C-alpha cells in the first residue's frame, strides 16, 4: 500500500506549476471575456516544451510513457490557474492511439506536440442509455454515436458531436464510431482517426461562459477515417480518462479557490474580528476542504485503477468526476460569498472560477451522467456479489 507521490511525480507537478506561473492566465482569461482578441497566451508551446503532449504515449513512440495519475497532476496545475491548454482533448485521443498497435505511425508527431489531437467524446452504453452516445447540442436527450461504413482500406464516418473540448485547431480527431451502425444488428464500436482537414469534416468553434475553454461543434459527413485496432475496453477507457482528467483539473481550481478564500478570511475584519473566526465562514470553508479531500482520494483511486484494477476504472473515474464537479461548484460559490460584494464583481478572480465551474459541470456528459454511472457500477457489483 502506497498512495504517496513519487519523487518524479512531485517534480512533474512542481515543474508544471513553475512553467504556468510565467503567464498571467487569470488576467488573460478576463481579457478574453472582455472580448479582447488573442488575449489568451499560447500555452501549447509550454506544453510542448514540457513534454506534456506525450505524457500517455509510450517511450518507444517518443512519449514519456507515464500514466493517468501523472496526467492528472498536470491537469490539476492547469486548473489551479485556469489555463486553457488543450490537453483535455489531446490526452484521451493519444490514449486511444497508443492502445492501438496500428496507431503507431500517428504517434510521434502527437508525442512531440508538432500535431495536436482532439478526442471525440463518445460515452459507452450504460443501464439507462443502452448504446454508445454523444452529448446533444441542445436539451438533455443523449444522441447516438457517429456511424462508420467500410470504404476499401478505411471507413467513412458520419455524425454530429457537440461541445467537443479543444476541437478548434486540432489536426487529428480521434474517437469512437459505430461500424455499420448505429442501432443496426451486429454493429460494433471501433476506434477511428480522422484528419481535421479531410473532406466532410467541419468544426464550428464556440465559446460558452468560460473564455478559457475551447469547444467545437463537429460535423462529419462521410469523412474518410483510419480504423484503429484499439481494444473495446480502451475505447471506453478514453471516456473515463477524460472524466478523470476533468476531475483533476476541477480540483486544481478548487485548491486555488480555497487558498484565496482562506487568506481573505484571515485578513478581512468585521465587528473587531477576522471573518474566518465566525463559524458560518469557517464551516463553509471546511466544507470545501472536505469535498476537496474526498475528490483527491478519488483521483488516487482513478489513477490506480486505470492499470491496477481496470474493471474498477469506470467506477473510480466517474466517482472522481462526480465529487470534483460538485466540489468546484461549492468552492466557487463559497469564494464569492466569503468575499462579500467584491466577490461578485467582474474585476475579481472569483467569477472566473465560478464560470469555469458552471461550464465544466456540463461538459463531457455532465456531472449527472457520471453520478448515474457510479450508481450503475455499484448496482452491477451488488448483482454480481
Amino acid at each position, binding site marked *: 500500500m502506497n498512495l504517496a507521490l513519487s519523487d518524479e511525480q512531485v517534480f512533474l507537478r512542481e515543474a508544471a506549476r513553475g512553467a504556468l506561473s510565467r503567464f498571467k492566465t487569470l488576467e488573460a482569461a478576463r481579457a478574453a471575456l472582455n472580448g479582447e482578441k488573442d488575449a489568451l497566451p499560447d500555452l501549447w508551446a509550454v506544453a510542448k516544451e514540457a513534454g506534456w503532449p506525450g505524457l500517455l504515449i509510450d517511450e518507444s513512440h517518443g512519449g514519456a510513457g507515464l500514466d493517468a495519475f501523472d496526467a492528472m497532476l498536470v491537469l490539476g496545475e492547469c486548473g489551479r490557474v485556469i489555463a486553457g491548454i488543450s490537453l483535455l482533448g489531446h490526452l484521451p485521443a493519444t490514449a486511444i492511439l497508443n492502445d492501438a498497435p496500428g496507431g503507431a505511425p500517428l504517434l510521434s508527431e502527437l508525442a512531440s506536440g508538432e500535431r495536436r489531437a482532439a478526442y471525440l467524446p463518445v460515452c459507452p452504453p450504460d443501464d*439507462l442509455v443502452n448504446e454508445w452516445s454523444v452529448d446533444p447540442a441542445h436539451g438533455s436527450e443523449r444522441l447516438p454515436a457517429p456511424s462508420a461504413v467500410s470504404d476499401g482500406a478505411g471507413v467513412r464516418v458520419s455524425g454530429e458531436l457537440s461541445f467537443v473540448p479543444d476541437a478548434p485547431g486540432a489536426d487529428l480527431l480521434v474517437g469512437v464510431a459505430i461500424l455499420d451502425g448505429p442501432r443496426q444488428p451486429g454493429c460494433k464500436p471501433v476506434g477511428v482517426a480522422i484528419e481535421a482537414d479531410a473532406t466532410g469534416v467541419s468544426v464550428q468553434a464556440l465559446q460558452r461562459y468560460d473564455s478559457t475553454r475551447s469547444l467545437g461543434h463537429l460535423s462529419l459527413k462521410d469523412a474518410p477515417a483510419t480504423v484503429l485496432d484499439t481494444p473495446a475496453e480502451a475505447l471506453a477507457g478514453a471516456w473515463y480518462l477524460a472524466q478523470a482528467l476533468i476531475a483533476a483539473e476541477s480540483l486544481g481550481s478548487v485548491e486555488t479557490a480555497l487558498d484565496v478564500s482562506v487568506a481573505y478570511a484571515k485578513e478581512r475584519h468585521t465587528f473587531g474580528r477576522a471573518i474566518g473566526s465566525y463559524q458560518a465562514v469557517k464551516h463553509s470553508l471546511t466544507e470545501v476542504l*472536505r469535498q476537496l479531500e474526498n475528490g483527491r482520494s478519488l483521483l488516487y483511486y482513478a489513477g490506480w485503477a486505470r492499470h*491496477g*484494477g481496470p474493471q474498477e476504472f469506470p467506477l473510480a473515474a*466517474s466517482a472522481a468526476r462526480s465529487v470534483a464537479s460538485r466540489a468546484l461548484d461549492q468552492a466557487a460559490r463559497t469564494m464569492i460569498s466569503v468575499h462579500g460584494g467584491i466577490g461578485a464583481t467582474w474585476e475579481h478572480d472569483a467569477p472566473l472560477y465560478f464560470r469555469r465551474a458552471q461550464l465544466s459541470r456540463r461538459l463531457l456528459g455532465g456531472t449527472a451522467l457520471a*453520478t448515474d454511472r457510479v*450508481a450503475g457500477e455499484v448496482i452491477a457489483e451488488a448483482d454480481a456479489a
Partner: protein
Amino acid sequence: MDLDDTPEQAAYRAQTRAWLEEHKSEAPVLRGPGALKDEAEILAARRAWQGRLAEAGLAGVTWPKEYGGQGLGPIEQVLSNQEIARAKVPGILDAIGVGMLGPTIIAHGSEEQKSRYLGPMLHGDEVWCQLFSEPAAGSDLAAVQARARLQDDGSWRLTGQKVWTTNAHFASYGLLLARTDADVPKHKGLTMFIVPMDAEGVTVRGLRQISGEAEFNEVFFDDVALDSGAVVGGVGNGWGTALTTLMFERVTIGLGSEGLGYNSARFAAAIAGDEHARRDPEVRHQLGEIASELLAVRFTGYRTLTALQKGQIPGPEAGLAKVTIVSAAIKAGDLIADVLGPDALLEDSEWAYMISFLPGLKSAGGTEEILRNTVGERVLGLPPEPRLDKGIPFSELRSKEGATV
C-alpha cells in the same frame, strides 16, 4: 503508487485468512438464522471470540509484543480487519479499549499498569469504558467536574458523574478524566485515572437510545476510593493524556468505517433488490452521490495508512472523513427507507437500527461542529473564536458563565 500488498503483507494476509478459515465456525452468530438471542449469552460469546482473535494475533496487532500484541504496523491491523470482515465474522467486542484506551495506557501508563491491565483487556477478559463525557462537559471536555481529591496517604477519593458511557454496563474498568485542581485554568487541573467499575460507590444506569437499546450509560461515583497507582500519565497531565485517546479515536473511526458497515456495496445491494428503484434516475443519482463519497473515504483511509506507514501521525483532517461517513450513511438510510417504504422501519430491520443509531453518531467522538472548528483552525489556520474561559481558574468559571447570559 500501488494498493498491492508487499510480500510480507501478502504472507500476513494469507496467514490471517487461513486462521479465519479454520476457526470461523467458532465465531458467534449475531445476525440471521441461528443468531444468538440472549444478551448474556451474546456477551460471553463475543468476549470468548475476542480472546480467540487475540491469541491468534488478529487483535492488538499494533500493540508491543511484551503486552500481548504483535508489534506490527497499522497496515497489518487494517489487513487483519479486512480479513475479519471478509470472513463475515464479528470483530472484537472491546474496540474502545483495544483501539483507544489500551494505546493511551501504552503511551502514558506506568510499567505496573501496562503489565496488569493490557493483557486481560486485549483478550476480552476485562472490558473497558471511556469515562470522559459528563452532563456539563462533552464538546467542552476540559470542563469536567468529577472531582478527585488527594488523601493524606496518597490515595484519592472520587465523586461525580459521567454520561453516554458506551459499554459501562459490562465493563471491568474505565479510564476516567477528573478534576484534581479547581484553582488553575481548566485544562491544567485535570488528571486521568483507572477506575474499577466494581468499586464501592460506583453506580451504572443504562440509558436507552433512539433504537430502544441501551448501549450507553450514566455512571455515578460516590466517594470512590482509588489508590495512588490509579493515576495515568501524572497528576495534572490529564488533558494531554485525553488528547492521546482522542487521537486514537480519530484513527479508529477514520479507518474503521467499513467495519461499521457503512459502505457502498451494502447500500447498493439494498437498492439493487428493487426492480423499479434501480432504474429510477432520481434514486440512482442519490445512490451515485452516496457511493462516491463512501468510496472517497475508503481511499482517504488508504492515504492515512500511507502516512502512518511513513511514521506520520494523522492530523485532525481525519475528522472530515467522519463527517463524510456519517452524513453519507444518513443519506443512505433515508434513500433506502424511501425505496423500501415503512417496512424499512420495522423495529428489527437492520435499516431501522442504522437510521436510529446515526443521529447519535453525529455527536459521538466529537460533534460535526466541533470537528469543523478544529479542522478550520488547525488545518486551514483560521483564527479561533474568542473564548471566555481562557486563563481563568476553573473554580471561577461557573459564575462568569452565568454573567454572560
